[in-house]
Structures are given as C-alpha cells and as structure tokens.
C-alpha cells in the first residue's frame, strides 16, 4: 500500500493507501465522519487534495480500494476497463485531469470516447478537486442518451419520473396522482410506483393498472413497479407486462448482498425483461437507484469514503445498459448527508460521476424530516441539476411522498424549471402532450395547458368519475 504525503499550512500529513487519501480529500460529510474516515481538520483535508492533485490517474489501475479477489464489483471494474479509451489520459495527474475536463477540448464527443477508460475511483477522485461550479460545467458537457419508448437525455430536455405512491397502493389513489402528474406534463422518464408492500399479487395488479392506462392513452413512456429484482423476475414469469426492471445497487459485493442481489441476478433480470421486447424506440430495460451511504449503512464500505463507493455503484449500473439511474440523494438520512449543503453537493457529485462514466443520470432531489434541510434546498438543487443537464428528476404530488415519508420535487417545480430554464420533455412525450392538448409551447417553453374538457375526460377514463 502506497503512502502519500503533502503539507498545508506549514504542517505535513501522510495518508496510507488510496482509500484514506480519497476519504481525507472528500468534502465534509457526516457519513464519512460516522465511519471515522473523514479528515480530522480542514487543513488536513486540503493537504489531501494537494496530494491527490499530484497523483497520476494511472495509480487507480495499480491499487484497488476494495480487494479484487473478494469483490465482484472490483473485478467488474478492472476486467471491463478499456485501456485504449484510457490511453489519452494515461499520463495525466488527477489535478491535470480536472483542468482538462474544464477545457474546451473536453466536449460531448471526447468525454463519451473516454467514458469506458475512466474507472469510478478516478472520477470520484477528480470530483473531490472540483467546486460545485466545475461539477455543473462538466456534467453539462456530457450527453448520455437512453431509449425505451422515448428518447431521454437529449440536450435541452429534462425528463421526469412521475411518482404516484400511495400508503396502501390503492389504485384510485394512485390514479389521481398520475392524473395530476400528466396534467402538469410529467412522466416521460417513467411512471414509477414504489409499492407499499412486496406482496406479489399486489405488484402484479399495479403493473397491470399502469400498463392499461398507458395503452388507453397510447402514452410514449414506460412504467415500473419498484420491487425487488427477484420479485420482478417472478412477475415476468407470471406474464406481467413489465417494462423496466428496478433495483437498488451499491458499490461493493457485500453491500449488494445486503440488497439481496449480485451481478448474475441482475443479468438474469435484464435478460428476462429483454425477452419481452416491449421497447419501441430502444431496449434499455434497467432502472437503478443508488445513494451515498448505502454501502456504509450495510457496513460494506471497506474503509472507502461514501462518495467513492457511490461512484463504484455506477460501474454496476453501466454494465447493464440502464434507461435510468437515479441517485436518491437525501433519502438515506442525516447520518450520511447532514444538511442541505451536503445534499446539494452530493447531488452534483453523483450527477458528474454518473455522466462521466456514461450513465443516463437522474436525481431524486430530496430530504427526510430528520435532516437539516428543507424545500429551499430542493429549489436550489433542482435548479443546479437542470443547469447541469440532469437526465431526469423525481416529481411527486405537492413534493410530499405520502408512502415513503420524505419530500422531493413537485409537478409545480417542473413547471418552474420549464418556464425559467426552458427545458422540455422527451420529444416523443412532448408530441403526445401536445396532441392531448395537455401542454402548449409558448416561446419555446412547454407549459401546462389544463384543458378542462380533456381533464374531465381523463378523470372518467381512469375510472375516477363519481
């Protein structure tokens, strides 16, 4: 294990191993403090950043932060590394890489070409040397397109998951929330329900309901019931109309075992969904969720800081060509991301790391009530994410998820972003919204139209008319 040295403020510091160097260089984070990995002082933190800046990127190919022999995520990262794509970067230091990322030379094309040459650890490392502004500027340059029944990730577009959760999965209650979302033009990334229980019949019923609704209106979008991957495999076997396979993933084998999964289960699920051939524009069938702190909460972080572990989760995700990757950034609680400042920073880091690694990255800009965060922080984060070119965000009625008990962005927030930043829905979905008269284009802005007759008709059609 290599030792790294640097001094700051007249004091010298040493860091043994890449993991401790990365952790010490990480912005202050309650999860790293919980794991006793964080820098002991601000001066030590900046010393670690000096050391990291001088480190050759190639060091990350020589030293694994989690052992190769015992961890299938490390093996996946190492065995799928594209040396040819890495060649142009092979003599850069981490600091030099940051400068290159911010240069004109780094554009959508060169970033895409490099993606398979970057490892999660390299990207996590460079993110620690970047200010929020840098993360936004580079994320914005990356375009990652994914397709199923529409095209997500195009420049100038912002997708949304319409999240219509209900505390007991009541079909009418869910239908009302979907209606609200559609009237506000949400739902192009996915209409996705977190079921209140993992009961199989219940999930089958929800999937059936979503599919009927989609077909009734010929909506160019996809649906998902976010249940465990093994349940989804069984639902596919039962003949349920499954569009997307959902699963939470993390950055180590043991953390994934904590989720009850491994790479071969994910592969099996992907193949099962592909066999249904339900995509029309494309066949990206996987939907992954991640979040900083997931590995630590399963005590499966191997002494690695939570932001680096999060980037490793993206290596798992990109192996399965996902349609959607969603970092649920403030969901896990204050023991990992303490306040609005940490949540905002983490959201931008995750977007940056995900996009650079070639993922169709979205973000659930959210917080729980025991975090030191509120809706103002979500306003800030969704604005920054949209400027940074996030593929999609999560939207729930009135920002309040009544099943999961946390707060995210609302449908009105989507209108705010469309109005003020000019982002539009996925093109196929936008065409549908226009045909349905649900939105109008005003000065290039897609704004809700709220056509009374159409709304009443939809109330009728989803079986809600009294």
């Amino acid at each position: 294990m290599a030792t790294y040295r640097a001094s700051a403020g007249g004091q010298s510091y040493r860091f043994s191993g890449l993991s401790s160097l990365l952790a010490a260089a990480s912005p202050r984070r309650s999860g790293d403090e919980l794991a006793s990995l964080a820098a002991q002082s601000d001066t030590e933190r900046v010393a670690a950043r000096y050391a990291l800046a001088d480190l050759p990127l190639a060091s990350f190919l020589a030293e694994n932060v989690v052992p190769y022999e015992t961890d299938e995520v490390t093996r996946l990262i190492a065995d799928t590394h594209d040396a040819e794509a890495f060649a142009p970067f092979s003599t850069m230091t981490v600091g030099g890489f940051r400068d290159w990322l911010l240069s004109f030379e780094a554009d959508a094309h060169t970033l895409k070409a490099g993606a398979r040459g970057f490892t999660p650890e390299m990207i996590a490392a460079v993110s620690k040397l970047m200010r929020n502004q840098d993360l936004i500027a580079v994320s914005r340059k990356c375009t990652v397109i994914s397709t199923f029944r529409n095209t997500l990730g195009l420049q100038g577009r912002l997708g949304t998951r319409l999240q219509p959760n209900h505390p007991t999965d009541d079909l009418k209650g869910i239908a009302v929330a979907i209606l609200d979302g559609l009237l506000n033009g949400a739902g192009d990334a996915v209409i996705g329900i977190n079921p209140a229980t993992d009961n199989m019949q219940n999930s089958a019923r929800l999937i059936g309901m979503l599919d009927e609704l989609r077909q009734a209106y010929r909506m160019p979008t996809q649906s998902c019931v976010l249940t465990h991957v093994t349940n989804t495999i069984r639902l596919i076997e039962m003949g349920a109309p499954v569009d997307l396979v959902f699963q939470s993933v993390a950055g180590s084998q043991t953390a994934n075992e904590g989720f009850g999964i491994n790479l071969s289960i994910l592969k099996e699920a992907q193949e099962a969904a592909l066999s249904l051939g339900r995509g029309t524009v494309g066949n990206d069938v996987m939907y992954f969720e991640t979040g900083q702190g997931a590995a630590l909460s399963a005590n499966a972080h191997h002494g690695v800081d939570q932001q680096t572990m999060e980037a490793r989760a993206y290596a798992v995700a990109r192996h399965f060509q996902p349609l959607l990757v969603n970092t649920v950034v403030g969901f896990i609680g204050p023991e990992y991301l303490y306040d609005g400042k940490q949540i905002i920073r983490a959201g931008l880091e995750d977007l940056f790391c995900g996009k650079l690694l070639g993922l169709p990255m979205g973000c659930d800009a959210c917080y729980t009530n025991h975090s030191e965060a509120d809706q103002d922080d979500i306003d800030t984060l969704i604005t920054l994410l949209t400027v940074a070119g996030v593929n999609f965000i999560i939207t729930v009625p009135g920002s309040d998820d009544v099943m999961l008990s946390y707060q995210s962005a609302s449908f009105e927030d989507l209108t705010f972003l469309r109005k003020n930043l000019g982002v539009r829905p996925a093109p196929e979905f936008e065409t549908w919204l226009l045909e349905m008269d649900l939105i109008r284009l005003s000065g290039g802005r897609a704004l809700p139209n709220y056509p009374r007759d159409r709304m009443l008709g939809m109330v009728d059609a989803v079986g809600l008319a009294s």
Partner: protein
Amino acid sequence: MSAPANLFGNLRTLTPSRVGVATADGTAPTRSVLDFQQAYALARDAIHEPLDAAGIARAVAPLPSRLVRSQTPDRGTYLRRPDLGRRLHAECLIDLPAIGCDVVFVVADGLSARAVEQHVAPVLKLAVERLEGWSVGPVVIASQARVAIGDEIGACLGAEFCVVLIGERPGLSVSDSLGVYITRKPAIGRMDSDRNCISNIHANGGLSHAQAAAKIAWLLKQARKIGQTGVTLKDEMVEGVIEHGAV
C-alpha cells in the same frame, strides 16, 4: 384554462397525497405553501418527542415487558450515530437472560415515539392472538433504538424470531406511522436482506392494526415453514392485497 386546483375537488378524498395544487399558471398558491410548511414543522417536532416507555409497558400488559435503552445518550447523537442506536447499553444485558422462545417482540421508538404510542399495543395484542402455540418472550421496549437492536435482543433471549415494531420517520402527512421488521435467528450483523418489512401502519390511509397483525402472523408462520426470512420469503399472503382501510 382551468386550474387543477378546481378540478381535483372530490378526487382529493381518494388519496392523502397533495394532488391538484397548481393554480392556472402552474404555480403553488400561498395557502398550499404555508400548509406544507406547517406539516413540515409538525413532523420535525414529532421526531424529538421522547418515548413514554413505562406507558407502553402498561399498555401491553398483561404481556410481561422489559425496558432497555441503546448506547445512544441523546436524540442529537441518535440522528448522527446509527451504530449506537443498534446496540444495547451494557447495563441492560442483565435484564435479557437466555430464556429461549419462538418469538420476541421488540418495541423501538425509532423516529416516532408517537407511532409506538398509537399503534403498538393493539397490533401486538392482535398478532399474539394469531400465534397460538408459539412461545412468546417478554416484550422488550427499547428507547433511542434502531431496527437492528432487535438482533442483539433476540440473540440474548435466544429467540428464533425477532419482530421489531418501530416508529417510522415522520412524513408530512403522517407522523405516527409504525413499521415492522421480522428476522429469523436474530444475531448481531444481520443484513437488511435477512428481514421482511411491513410498513405504513397508521390511520391516515395506511394499514389497519388488524391487517398488520394478520400479516405479521402470516409471515412468521411462512418463515417457520421455509426456515427463512428476508428476500427468499415472499409475501404471497392471499389477503395481502390491502384494502384502503381505517385503523
């Protein structure tokens, strides 16, 4: 153009969600912004309410109970140090001798003492009624506790199954939601994938006490049959399609 706010009138009764907020301009009106802030304030306050453990002990009588606490000294530490909330305070070990039992129910405050006070006693009573022939250990009431504290408690008592009833984190619509976690062969180090969860037990459109108790009993019996809890134990309870019901 007509605001969803007008359209949604009666539809609002179908869900506790904040549907149909937008004005005709697609913005959230003042009233709804303030209502949201009020709900947020109530949820924040609920997190800090202490558990009346002695009151719970009285409420679950005649079932015998034991009062224990985690290694967490206060609420602020509880929020930042989940590891301490998962472990028993050393002085409590003496109250949990290895008696051996089929199932132990652990009541934990979690993030909502209010949820525990509202729902634990009736759920527990109904669940125990459905477990005829099972030996049930003393109810262990744990303060400043997280789910995994049940692993240590279950291991101390020598229970085959541990059922943790815990206050879920307060949301804006519900600040008294109870969650249940069932773990076979509880022991320190169990993973989330070893457990089965029942969530959203509350009166605002959540699971009723009777529904929750039935599901606990079904999962326990099924877990005993297959010798496992966690991701391999699928909830295939036929009545499991939950109806929208009051507690």
